């Protein structure tokens, strides 16, 4: 195989392998994304900045007291 044929082979193989690697890496990224645990609506609602006060059961009906932790 001459030097020119070798270079041609390297170029063609590099192009095809790079494109294949790109496709496979992209699919791997998508699979990683699919396996990641999703944050549920409940998780989002559970915020460190809101503390909901629950009155003791024996007390008279009370209004809900939501205190916001301000920073």
């Amino acid at each position, binding site marked *: 195989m001459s030097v020119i044929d070798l270079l041609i082979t390297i170029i063609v193989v590099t192009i095809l392998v*790079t494109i294949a690697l790109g496709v496979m890496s992209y699919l791997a990224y998508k699979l990683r994304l699919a396996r990641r645990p999703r944050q549920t609506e409940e998780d989002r609602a559970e915020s460190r900045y809101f503390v909901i006060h629950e009155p003791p059961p024996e007390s008279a009906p009370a209004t809900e007291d939501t205190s916001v932790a301000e920073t």
Partner: protein
Amino acid sequence: MARKIRPVVSIVSTAAVVLATVLFVYWAIHSPLQVQRFLVRLVLISLIIFLAILFVRYFALLWFSYLQHAEKTARGRVESHNLPPVSVVVPAYNEARVLDDAMEALLRLDYPTYEVIIVDDGSIDETVEVARQWEGQHGDVAVRVLTKANGGKATALNAGIAQAQYSFILCMDADSWIEPQTLHVVMPHFEDPSVGAVAGNVKIFNRDNLLTRLQALEYIEGLNMPRRAQGFLGAVNVVPGPVGVFRLEALQEVGGYDADTFAEDADLTLQLITAGWRIIYEDSAITWTQGPTNLIDLIQQRYRWTRGILQAVRKQKWILLRPFPDFPLWLSAVEMAFEGVVWPVLNVYAHLFFAIVALLFGMGELLLYWWILLTLLDLVVALITVSMEEESLSLVPLAVVYRFFFILFLDVTKTFAAVEEALNLGMDWGKLRRIELSQITRAGHR
């Protein structure tokens, strides 16, 4: 953004693109001789057109970036006695590992009057605790910490801007390290009342492996060089997230950052240009940032960038049809759309097409000469841009693998991202892994 993410649809659309390509190849192999001759002629014409587009693009970018460089060199460093106070806004989401380094760099800024506002966007790590340690007065610099429920980077930036007490805002990322002279070299540009924002120069800090070194070259050649060219026209189309200084009046005019794209920086910049503001590039306003260190993280980043930019262009799509009266604006939007979708798709299919047809129809020598020409072009461009940036010349030889491996690899992701954006599929931010500054070795650059 609240779109449902459907990874199955993404995978199916990927498979469809791959299948279409394979079917084309199968058809090409089994087509009649006349069709094959036509394909060969098509390859020749495509090679010439591809080279012509590349040369014109590179020539235009190099010429305008050279004019910007020459203009700045002739002007010399502008010393201004008018250095107005600046508010620095640092949005942070789960940045506990890197926030200390960013803050140390911020407090080393060589500037008379500025304040720092860290905006925690509902982090679930120790970001707030780390930020609180910086809260208070550091000499003349006041550091404040705001916290809010998680709403995305755009809302965090807007929250910080709303609390800013000064008329100029530096927006930066919590994982970036700003150089001390940045504000000093940026603020004189605002003496021109038509300037709405100044884009800084983002460089890759972690150059530990081939991938990060290629990103370092890409930032110089693929991002900063076009910004220089656009800066000469006063129409930089993206003020980068890691370093951008804005006139508060300009931000208020466009309503701050919108939260409906994943490239809020590109979206805001296009809105500013549309509103008539000039956007300048200052190459001495340097900020160092971390590049992804592995292929998957890199794909995650570039996927978001591509879709975000296409979302931003889609919001302003009317600009694409009106080159006048605002030609620089039209040029910026066209370039964004071209670089975001047209060029990556063309690049991938051109390479695939050339490789397959060369294999099947014995045009290997033509492909070799084409590769030699492109590589020489890339080496020359790398040498010029690296020299203009006063960067390490050790990056120049990387130009040999830059196009045929790195750019081609990224363009595959960009192609799929463009398809997914066209199909309006769901997406989210994704969080890149951060490495503390002390763990990164600064290899191969000054």
